[in-house]
């Protein structure tokens, strides 16, 4: 039984038999429906009007393959890898491990994981790393960080004073164990600034853009960024920061302005926590 190449592809559903005669090798136009056996009009060969269902010829035409959903799967998988790291950290701290040491280990593992992920997804991430964007975006990013820091401070101030949500100070544990400013900046500002940007604005946002519109991708990646922090009181300002970083990434085409914004925001948090100019107000992540 010869495997015959199926009928030539008709551009529309109203393919005239003449087009098949021109193709030469194709089989004669069907006169009966393959599925229900009802006679077909010679001009209307794509779908059977009698059984209406997803009929034969329309769907039996040679199927071209759809590009796989790899980038979007990779984006979602990276999110769950981050979630897994958070779970390991929660369990380790619950089991009595030193919180700061656990943070060091998990941060290092996450960094290695994200860099490896970027190497695998280099087709998506490399263009954003190769581009630096308009130099004017960098001062704008620092201004943006001041703005997001202000918004976050106000949000947390309102939550703690109106709703009495308790606040946690990230630096206390580090300071308590004798770590100094350079370690704090490295762990709280540099590492998240670079690694979270590579992950959320590099792999995830670009992966989503394969199937979503730019605004949808920014919105979805901002929500993912918000949820992974696992802190409901911080959701409002984390969402604002995520939107700002996503918009910056799409607008500049580069990851560096976003890294600068993220780094500056976290740096402001560290500095203000240690400096304590306004006692009683604690600062957001």
């Amino acid at each position, binding site marked *: 039984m010869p495997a015959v190449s199926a009928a030539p592809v008709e551009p529309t559903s109203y393919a005239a038999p003449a087009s098949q005669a021109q193709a030469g090798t194709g089989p004669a136009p069907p006169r009966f429906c393959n599925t229900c056996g009802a006679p077909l009009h010679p001009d209307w060969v794509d779908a059977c009007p009698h059984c209406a269902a997803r009929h034969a010829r329309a769907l039996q035409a040679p199927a071209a393959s759809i590009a796989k959903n790899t980038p979007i799967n990779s984006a979602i998988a990276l999110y769950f890898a981050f979630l897994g790291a958070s779970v390991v950290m929660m369990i380790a701290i619950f089991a009595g491990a030193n919180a700061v040491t656990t943070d060091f280990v998990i941060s290092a593992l996450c960094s290695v994981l994200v860099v490896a992920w970027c190497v695998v997804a280099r087709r998506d991430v490399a263009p954003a790393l190769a581009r630096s964007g308009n130099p004017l975006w960098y001062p704008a990013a620092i201004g943006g960080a001041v703005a997001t820091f202000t918004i976050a401070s106000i949000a947390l101030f309102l939550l703690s004073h109106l709703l009495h949500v308790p606040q946690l100070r990230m630096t206390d544990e580090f300071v308590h164990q004798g770590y100094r400013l350079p370690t704090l900046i490295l762990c709280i500002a540099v590492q998240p600034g670079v690694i979270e940007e590579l992950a959320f604005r590099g792999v995830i946002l670009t992966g989503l853009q394969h199937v979503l519109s730019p605004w949808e991708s920014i919105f979805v990646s901002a929500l993912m960024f918000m949820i992974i922090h*696992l802190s409901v009181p911080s959701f409002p300002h984390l969402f604002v920061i995520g939107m700002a970083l996503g918009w910056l990434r799409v607008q500049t085409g580069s990851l560096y302005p976003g890294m600068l914004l993220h780094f500056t925001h976290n740096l402001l948090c560290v500095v203000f926590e240690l400096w304590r100019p306004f006692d009683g107000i604690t600062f957001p992540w």
Partner: protein
Amino acid sequence: MTQVTMQSCPHCGAQNPWGSTFCSSCGKALPTGMPSGPRVVGAKDFATTAAGQKLQGDELRKTAKKAAGALLAVAILQTLGVGLLFVLLQNLPGARRGALPQAAQILIGAQVGVAVIFWGLWFWARVSPLPAAIVGLVLYATLVTINVVTSVSQMSQNNGKPGGGGFGGIGIGWLDIIIIAVLVRAISAGATHRKLMQQQAAGI
């Protein structure tokens, strides 16, 4: 381009696509023993005719829209859960009516926040199912994970006895699995649907 396997009609000898029930040339029934009914292109292929693409697109869109149902179910359950929690906390022995302890207020606030997000996701999924399903999956799976971690740590505290909270012993139930499965399928179908639209727009 893949090749479609053909079969000969025993009555007139015409070639018919594999899986056909009737001959397209003479209209007589073809030998049984092969699956009858229409052959639908697989999930990784797409039809090349306009009619086929429309049918396939409708099918994919229908699957993607099921995300809205799953998100609605979560929103309703979450709302009922918050209501129940509120009533339980109000009637705790020793609790004064109308004056919940601080921790309980924050707990209820967070749960209400999650319920509101799922109602929002349901509305969004009715308009564009794919992005809403992605966010829904991420949020729901995160909540289930936290639930599992909490239950397991409670179990280890209670020397192996299942702690409170969660549907089953370890905080994951059949409903969680079904909801996650529906969302995963919806995302897959939604993404394929968008690709189909992109390829159509590009004129392939």
